[in-house]
């Protein structure tokens, strides 16, 4: 190995390691989405879990709901705050999307930001899209 080859390889390596830094300099970086409550959700002031728990755990909750509904026909969820909810992602007024009406803002903004591609919508439909 000649010294030139080594130095070239090393330069490529250093550039690769620093790629997260320069990549954001040469491309326009999308800012983090600002979560906001709209419509009915804004007035309701109550949800199935509290804010931080919801942000971290909603996927596990939905997974549990799916099993409860599909396997045990158990459709009522009693939250820690005493309110009851219909265990449904998109059906009815008491479901997730029944209250959080804007899927693009409520679901997609953060999922797109963090490159999460949930397969909810392979079966469920956004109620707004039906009308």
């Amino acid at each position: 190995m000649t010294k030139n080859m080594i130095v070239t390889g090393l330069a490529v390596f250093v550039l690769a390691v620093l790629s997260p830094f320069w990549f954001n300099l040469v491309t326009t970086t999308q800012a983090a989405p600002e979560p906001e409550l709209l419509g009915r959700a804004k007035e309701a002031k109550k949800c199935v879990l509290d804010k931080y728990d919801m942000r971290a755990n909603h996927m596990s909750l939905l997974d549990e709901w799916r099993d409860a509904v599909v396997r045990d026909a158990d459709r009522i969820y009693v939250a820690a705050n005493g309110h009851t909810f219909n265990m449904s992602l998109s059906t009815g007024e008491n479901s997730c999307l029944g209250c959080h009406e804007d899927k693009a803002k409520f679901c997609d903004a953060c999922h797109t930001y963090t490159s999460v591609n949930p397969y909810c919508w392979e079966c469920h439909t956004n109620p707004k899209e039906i009308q």
Partner: protein
Amino acid sequence: MTQKYLIPLAAVFLLFLVAYTGAGAGLGWFFGIVFPYLAIIAFLVGFVIKVMGWARAAVPFRIPTTCGQQKSLPWIKQNRIDNPDTASGVFVRMLLEIFLFRSLFRNTKAAFSRSASNRITYSWEIFLWVAALAFHYAFLVVLLRHFRFFTSPVPFPVQFLEALDGIVQLGLPGLFLSGVVLPAAALFLLARRLFDQKVRYISQASDYFPLFLILGIAITGISMRYFTKVDITAVKEMTMGLVTFSPTIPDGIGNLFYAHMFLVSVLFAYFPASKLMHLGGVFLSPTRNMANNTRAKRHVNPWNYDVPIHTYEQYEDHFRDKMIEAGLPVEKKE
């Protein structure tokens, strides 16, 4: 010999606890911002110093290990990859070494046979190669997947890799295959050092420490994704802050995240000083990256200087009279 793995194990636990409790005590800015920046600087500077040191080291001899027939007479078939005599052969050899660990594939183990003869026998041992390959590729996938925390919008190749890695669609959030393969392979490599007496005998603390550290990183990461959960949007806000040089500490990131981040930073900072430098070293192994062409080309030691030599002619000139007198044969009579 137990202290050789107990001390690194305790060290990794301690590092974890320092960051976990430190972040809980409001030092998140240190474990999430200051230390990662320092670690990246240490990693790059250390890496460059180390490789430049190797680049300066003299390699006076052609010392490729030959694993096949050398280039010889035209009717003898040469093994162009295992005994290359051209740059292209060396290139293919290096490619196979770097991407497929070809030399490890030939790994053998020596053991005394259990029969009465008690002779030493050598057998092919493929599992180290399998585990090493699984470990390195799983780690590469995990590393590349993490680019989703450092780019926004996330480029297509990263999303594609995530889709491939999560192809089994198990559970929610979906299981990543690399999250299974990486710890499993790392545990195999650890078990090999612990339970194979011959390997255990030659294993040092510096062999165990990276394994425990990587396992610690994997466990904290897997825990955050599948079990204890974190607010991933807040985490990404933080990591994006780091790479756009506007660091922030958003609310609601668990202490576990800082512990994960700290262990990764320790791995980066420790990297250039450790055996992990085989990342750079594999390219520079003289026994792999040289063509075996010593019969075709003359290689002169680059630092040969003029040594005053005394040839036979000079010797004879010097002692001719005495040689003739003693009756010794000389080449020139006068």
